[in-house]
């Protein structure tokens, strides 16, 4: 018997209903050409309310979530999502229509302005837009800003430099902003240095996109020298702030020569990932790039908040309405709760936890870059009798979500571990013990790993089959 509940279409029965709408008392006739109207939707669910609840509760039980336990996905910053923030974001007070007259939504506008102020204070950038919908959307916005700025200076240039340790969204975002990509090799320490950069720094280089700390968890210590070299070349420094959690209250990217950066509210600022989204990817810029920020912009004029919908140098609009507003509500609530007293502790604890895991696991796993790391650590599968994937799958049997696997690409069989600051030492000790046990099993009973997972609702799934013969929806009688 399948451990998964039947599809909602398979439990559907003619005559059942879960909605509670009443009949309308408005008498009127359709005013549309009859040929444009549809008939009933064949196969659409007909299920009672109690069955809806049980269906989704059955699905809920099949998910591993942060609320259940450690979720150490490197560079994803899976930190605890405070419950009060959910309550605040679902308050009727914040559910206005986005085109409501501004005098009726002063609270919402104030909230966005306050979040931008917080982000400015934490990063040292001159200004922020909270419009981008996610990290990659922020990268794209940032690169459009770079391009518009350079274009108005006379030449948008052709090339964007990206380290080989970068996330795949970086080259993709720069590509859609019209740039060619040149990959910069990391040095033996796992970082970029000015000497390594120099040969690439030609007069057609628009910018370098640097993740800092990078995806190995290493702080790019040459950042200020790199910024100077870029600026001397007329190029800009973009910082991917996906890993800003490590720097919160420690250093402001704006003080390091960064021209543009994005951050992820769903990582550093504790908003829930929702199984893959929504995120929110605010973009911060240095003063010379302020005129290029996307519209709309929230502005304070006297005691009132207003909105600017057009600006002469702006890259334009990148999203409908204002952005992921209810994500912003949660992020601001998180920051207000942390306050001056705790922001730095977040970074310190995140880095302490990651270094504790590193210390305890470096005797049993290969550490390809011995350089000091901050919020995450990346091991390789060198000298192991099994693959990284097998270790990850065995972790599932022990009730832990695995780390990020096979990324960054410059590490063979990468295991990228980021515990975040919201895990206790007790949880880390448990994880370390399980990892050691699995590595012992790998030598003595490798089958336990090769056959893993066994304790999950389903076993390893055939991804090749899924891609070769795509079944992307239910069809009556065809999905069994």
């Amino acid at each position: 018997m399948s451990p998964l509940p039947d599809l909602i279409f398979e439990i559907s029965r003619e005559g059942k209903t879960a909605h509670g709408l009443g009949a309308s008392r408005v008498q009127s006739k359709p005013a549309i050409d009859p040929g444009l109207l549809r008939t009933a939707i064949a196969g659409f669910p007909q299920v009672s309310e109690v069955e809806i609840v049980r269906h989704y509760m059955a699905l809920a039980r099949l998910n591993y979530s942060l609320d259940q336990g450690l979720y150490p996905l490197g560079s994803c910053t899976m930190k605890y999502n405070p419950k009060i923030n959910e309550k605040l974001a679902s308050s009727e007070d914040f559910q206005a229509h986005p085109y409501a007259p501004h005098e009726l939504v002063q609270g919402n506008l104030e909230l966005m302005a306050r979040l931008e102020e917080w982000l400015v204070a934490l990063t040292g950038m001159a200004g922020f837009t909270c419009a981008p919908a996610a990290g990659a959307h922020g990268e794209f916005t940032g690169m459009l800003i770079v391009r518009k700025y350079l274009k108005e200076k006379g030449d948008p240039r052709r090339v964007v430099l990206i380290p080989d340790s970068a996330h795949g969204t970086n080259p993709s975002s720069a590509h859609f902003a019209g740039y060619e990509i040149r990959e910069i090799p990391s040095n033996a320490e796992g970082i970029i240095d000015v000497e390594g950069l120099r040969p690439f720094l030609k007069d057609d280089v628009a910018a370098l996109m640097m993740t800092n700390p990078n995806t190995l968890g290493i702080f790019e210590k040459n950042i200020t020298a790199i910024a100077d070299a870029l600026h001397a070349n007329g190029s800009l420094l973009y910082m991917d702030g996906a890993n800003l959690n490590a720097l919160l209250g420690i250093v402001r990217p704006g003080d390091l020569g960064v021209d543009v950066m994005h951050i992820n509210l769903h990582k550093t600022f504790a908003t829930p990932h929702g199984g893959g989204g929504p995120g929110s990817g605010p973009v911060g810029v240095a003063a010379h790039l302020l005129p290029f920020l996307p519209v709309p912009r929230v502005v304070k004029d006297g005691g009132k908040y207003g909105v600017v919908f057009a600006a002469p140098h702006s890259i334009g609009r990148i999203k409908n309405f204002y952005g992921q507003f209810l994500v912003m509500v949660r992020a601001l609530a998180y920051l207000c709760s942390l306050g001056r007293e705790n922001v730095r502790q977040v970074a310190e604890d995140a880095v302490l936890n990651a270094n504790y895991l590193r210390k305890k696991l470096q005797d049993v796993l290969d550490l390809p870059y011995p350089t000091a790391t901050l919020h995450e650590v990346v091991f390789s599968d060198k000298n192991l009798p099994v693959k990284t994937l097998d270790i990850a799958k065995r972790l599932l049997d022990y009730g832990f979500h695995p780390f990020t696997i096979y990324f960054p690409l410059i590490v063979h069989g990468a295991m990228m571990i980021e515990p975040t600051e919201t895990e206790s030492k007790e949880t880390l000790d448990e994880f370390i013990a399980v990892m050691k046990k699995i590595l012992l099993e790998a030598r003595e009973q490798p089958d336990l790993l090769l056959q893993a997972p066994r304790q999950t609702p389903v076993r390893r799934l055939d991804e090749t089959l899924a891609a070769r013969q795509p079944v992307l929806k239910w069809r009556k009688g065809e999905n069994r």
Partner: protein
Amino acid sequence: MRYLPLTDTAREEIKKAIGIDDCKELFKSIPADKSYFDLAAIPSALSEPELIAEFKAMGRKNFFPGYLSFLGAGAYAHFIPEVVAYLSAKGEFLTPYTPYQPEVSQGNLQAIFEYQTMMTMLTGLDVANASLYDGATAVAEAVLLAVRKSGRQRILLADSLHPEYSAVVRTYTQNLPIELVTVNVNEADGRINLNDLQAKLNDQTAALVFQSPNFLGVVEDSAVLAQAVHPQHAYAVQAVAEAMSLAYLRPAADFAVDVVAGEAQSFGLSLGFGGPYLGFMTAREEFLRQMPGRIVGQTKDLDGKRGYVLTLSTREQHIKREKAMSNICSNEAWCALRAGMYLATMGKDGLALAAGDSHLHAAYFVSKAAKSRQVRIVYQKNFYNEVLLEIKKGTAEAFLTALKKNKILAGVPLNWFYPTVSNRVLLAFSEVHSREDIDRLLQAMGEYS
């Protein structure tokens, strides 16, 4: 601090284990003159009760909840069953990451698979993706899709496309070799001007991108549009801002439309001041391997049991980097999951009822307002749930200000988007409006002079 479980003792133990005395040693790779910056500019922490009070105070500055609203234009108020709010708020749905480990993510994967199925049922098209950011970015991605698939660079954009969607398309394509050409709309019926379409269509045209129901509220005759562009091997791409219309109007596939992309906020997502919402994309099968975003597919596990995975990932940035179909990574997964819950809960009958009432309430308003001396209904037929009003005397702003005094938000003024159109207002209706609500609007309009 309650979100930080390390005790001071634990911190000391960790420091000892990793061989440091002070946390500052962890950050010594950061330039010393820049690190441990002064935190004075950062506000002090709020306790949980203080936080609640602070947000309540901000919320009290939003007077919107006290108003009867007929605002639409891309964001619509529809009734959300409590079951949807209850189930979607569960931590098991809210706090996982992207299902990279499918063995422990079957709940989300199956729910998205069900969502994809329902979106294809609504549009009649073959395949749906797992979500995009919102309606505007979904349309921008559809433009890029059409350009990729056709190998052509010319895109015709209907002038009746939501102005913010057009703006986002312009932003997305500003550095790409794509030519955007606007196609005019008939003043008489609010539909695309076919002569202008034919004049601008050529053998380099990748697609016509039109919205239906369009920004003026009018349902296009999609069959005519698809028939017009297909002989030139251009695609018919339909944008949808009001997804509820999909449950009332004949599916796009019946009219040979190739791609339908847009906004599905109407399916169970609160207005939320504009986000997070739900971009969707559905298309004919031949577009599948060029589509942006994540897609869930059915497969089997080692024991041959049915299961679900993210599939066709060679389209995506984590594999293809700068050659990917889109740079999207995080999407609107939770919104899609919630939309699936909403659609399943409303079901075949409930959705038809909500979608039907949305139109019938607009039709009721039109039948009554048609007799008005103060306003003119610009398009008296083939609207769905939005109605374009022309104010006979004075400006739209004056009209809206007068009704606002009666605690009514009587639509979105068109001059926000078209500065030269000073006397037109777009109103949206749905099942949430009672007959009394609409009568109250009509009465307040009658008193306006």
